[in-house]
């Protein structure tokens, strides 16, 4: 008797829990990157509940396809991905197992945020893996240009309005507010970066072409000999020579790379190693998309000023 009673009680509880009032149900938006989640938050406001699979301090190229992500995807109303094959190592099997056809590529709940963005380094010739871990669709770190952030926000607003038509006006208003603030912020960031236009820098991985182009920085070289290939002694020597001859002062390193080689290079050349954050959540204080640029640009400027 007892187990039966328990089962009935359990069933009743389950049924009570199930019918969520649709008027208060938030749109569940899963994103791969925290940057996309931040933009979805800014545009979606309190009508959406966002969840990012990848942490901002994690290398977005190498993410484990954990089954717990399947659970999150199975409940999503919309999925926003960076695209350009950045997620190819983990997302396809997760999506296949999500049992959630509405977020599959090509379905209404799926948004590839790269659509419409300015994508750099699209190979114009045949690429092979002799080039390292190249992305045949172009550099996938495109959100590091705030103008691309604007385009992503617009795509997200359109997608949210499509998924939740009753919120159309709210999304439009949020988007307008976001764009207004972004325009203001862009002016401020451009002002801070203006004195450094033409500055040559070295970065660890090729994560920064969009940022560099926006602010007129010149990426002279990478610590990685080829994308995804760890530093080699000969290439490290080349970079040391490059930094000496070009009088480069900064080496930007993403938070998920080993600082050993950059520090070695810095020691030999007098350049400064600067931890530079490509994503929201890279540090606790980088709470949203605006804070990402605020932090990075301030860090860049003070690093440049630190060495007159």
């Amino acid at each position, binding site marked *: 008797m007892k187990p039966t009673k328990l089962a009935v009680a359990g069933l009743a509880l389950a049924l009570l829990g199930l019918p969520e009032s649709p008027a208060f149900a938030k749109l569940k938006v899963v994103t791969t990157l925290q940057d996309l989640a931040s933009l979805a938050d800014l545009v979606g406001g309190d009508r959406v509940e966002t969840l990012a699979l990848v*942490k901002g*301090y*994690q*290398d977005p190229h*190498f993410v*484990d*396809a*954990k*089954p*717990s992500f*399947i*659970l999150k995807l*199975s409940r999503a109303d919309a999925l926003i991905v960076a*695209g*350009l094959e950045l997620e*190819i190592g983990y997302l396809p099997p997760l999506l*296949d*197992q*999500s*049992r959630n*056809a509405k977020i*599959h590529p*090509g379905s*209404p709940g799926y948004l*590839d945020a790269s*659509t*419409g*963005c*300015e994508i*750099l380094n*699209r*190979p*114009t010739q045949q690429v092979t*893996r002799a080039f*390292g*871990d190249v992305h*045949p669709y*172009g550099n996938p770190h495109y959100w590091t240009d705030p*103008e691309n952030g604007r*385009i992503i926000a*617009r*795509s997200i*607003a*359109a997608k949210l309005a*499509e998924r939740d038509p009753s919120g159309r006006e709210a999304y439009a208003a949020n988007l307008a507010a976001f*764009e207004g603030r*972004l*325009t*203001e912020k862009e*002016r401020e*960031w*451009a002002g801070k970066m203006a004195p450094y*236009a033409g500055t040559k820098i070295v970065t660890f991985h090729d994560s920064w072409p969009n940022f560099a*182009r926006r602010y007129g920085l010149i990426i002279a070289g990478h610590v990685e000999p080829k994308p*995804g*290939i*760890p530093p080699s002694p000969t290439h490290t020597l080349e970079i040391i020579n490059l930094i000496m001859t070009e009088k480069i002062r900064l080496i930007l390193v993403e*938070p*998920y790379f*080993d600082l050993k080689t950059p520090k070695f290079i810095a020691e030999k050349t007098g350049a400064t190693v600067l931890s530079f954050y490509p994503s929201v959540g890279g540090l606790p204080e980088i709470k949203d998309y605006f804070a990402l640029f605020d932090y990075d640009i301030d860090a860049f400027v003070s690093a440049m000023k630190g060495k007159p």
Partner: protein
Amino acid sequence: MKSRTSSTAMAIIFGFGLHPAVCADEKAAQPSAPSAPQAQGSPPAAPSQPPVKVSAPPTAEEVEALRREIEELRRQIQTLRDQLRAGLASGQGMALGAAPGETASAIPSPPPAPGLPAAPPAAASQTSNYFNPSISVIGNYLGVGGSNGTENLPSSSLRESEVSFQAIVDPYARADFFLSFGEEGVDVEEGFISFTSLPAGLLAKVGRMRTAFGKINPLHLHVLPWPDEPLPLVNLLGGEEGWIGTGLSVAVLVPLPGEVFSEATLQVLRGDSGELFAATQRGDLAYNGHYRVFRDLSEATNLEVGLSYGLGPNGLTSRSATRLEGLDATLRWKPLRTATYRSASFRGELIRSRREDPLGDQSAEGWFLSGEYQLAKRWFTGARIESSEHADDATQRDRGKALLLTFWPSEFSQVRGELRRREYADGETADELLLQIQFAIGAHGAHPF
């Protein structure tokens, strides 16, 4: 038709390549949009004009001809630019973006059309290939030193060449084929359709597949953390190949409180499978049930535990069956910030086989425990201990231990050495060195987890 299109494309590409002046001219004509040419896919086709001779002093007519030619080129470039602009404006929203310096312009333009795919980088001649499946080939070379009279692996072999074809079938399903080429002969290791859009949270597969028994059996040889299969799989799950079945598989997520993932899988398969099962009649089927629970213990640590139960006819008599029970556990540690440099995983599996035999039922068990530790971005070390009785004679037990070192030059190649000692039930002790080299070409597959 097809070859003609591609030869035209070739001609265009060559034409473009032979006229650096045209490229330079075009670049010079676009100083205001530094991003446009690179960002927007294939370059516009340039006309094939005969090269201009400059060896002799030019006459007035030649100068005039040159001028006309330049004018003509200029017009063509203008047309191409206009076309490019028009194409961008209609297809890509405001993809041209603002150049540095005009950051704050913020032209309100409509968001890009939803669902519009990014322009493929492929040339026009490849559009007919657009729906071709992703293809990859993984080579698995094995060299073996030392002596072993019981399990005589060849000194040098291309143990497996796995060819995979994977694609979306239609809005409801995807298909995966894995053909395993030995040095002689081919096997369909797996070939199945997965219905990914079923109601009620179901995920169904139909075809030939590695059975979801335990954690190692479903994995392909090339993704195992060792060059060889552990003893319990070899002795109890039907040999080196493991348990591969043909039939239907249905998996459902079982909701549990908290953020705990749990999945139940039921598989109904043909009653024949390698050395494991043999059906005397068509109606004798094999079944497999698997239940797994996964939980993130912290951001860096997670645990997966699985239970398996298999059942099938063993062909010794028309009614005799073999029952399989399995328990597997995997504990992983990988701090996210340094995920590409440092990680560890521990796994173990316990398998019991109960085989009905007219000459005396056999209840055999086997297990392995294994650990892997990442020393650096490309270096992994590992160890394994294993022990297993024989499915057909539970009095016979093999034991083994192994040490491993793996180097990954890149994500697509791997060199692995295994120092292994196996003590066989027949009394032989074999010390061997296995050297495995694996290499993958083609589409970038997802990393197994």
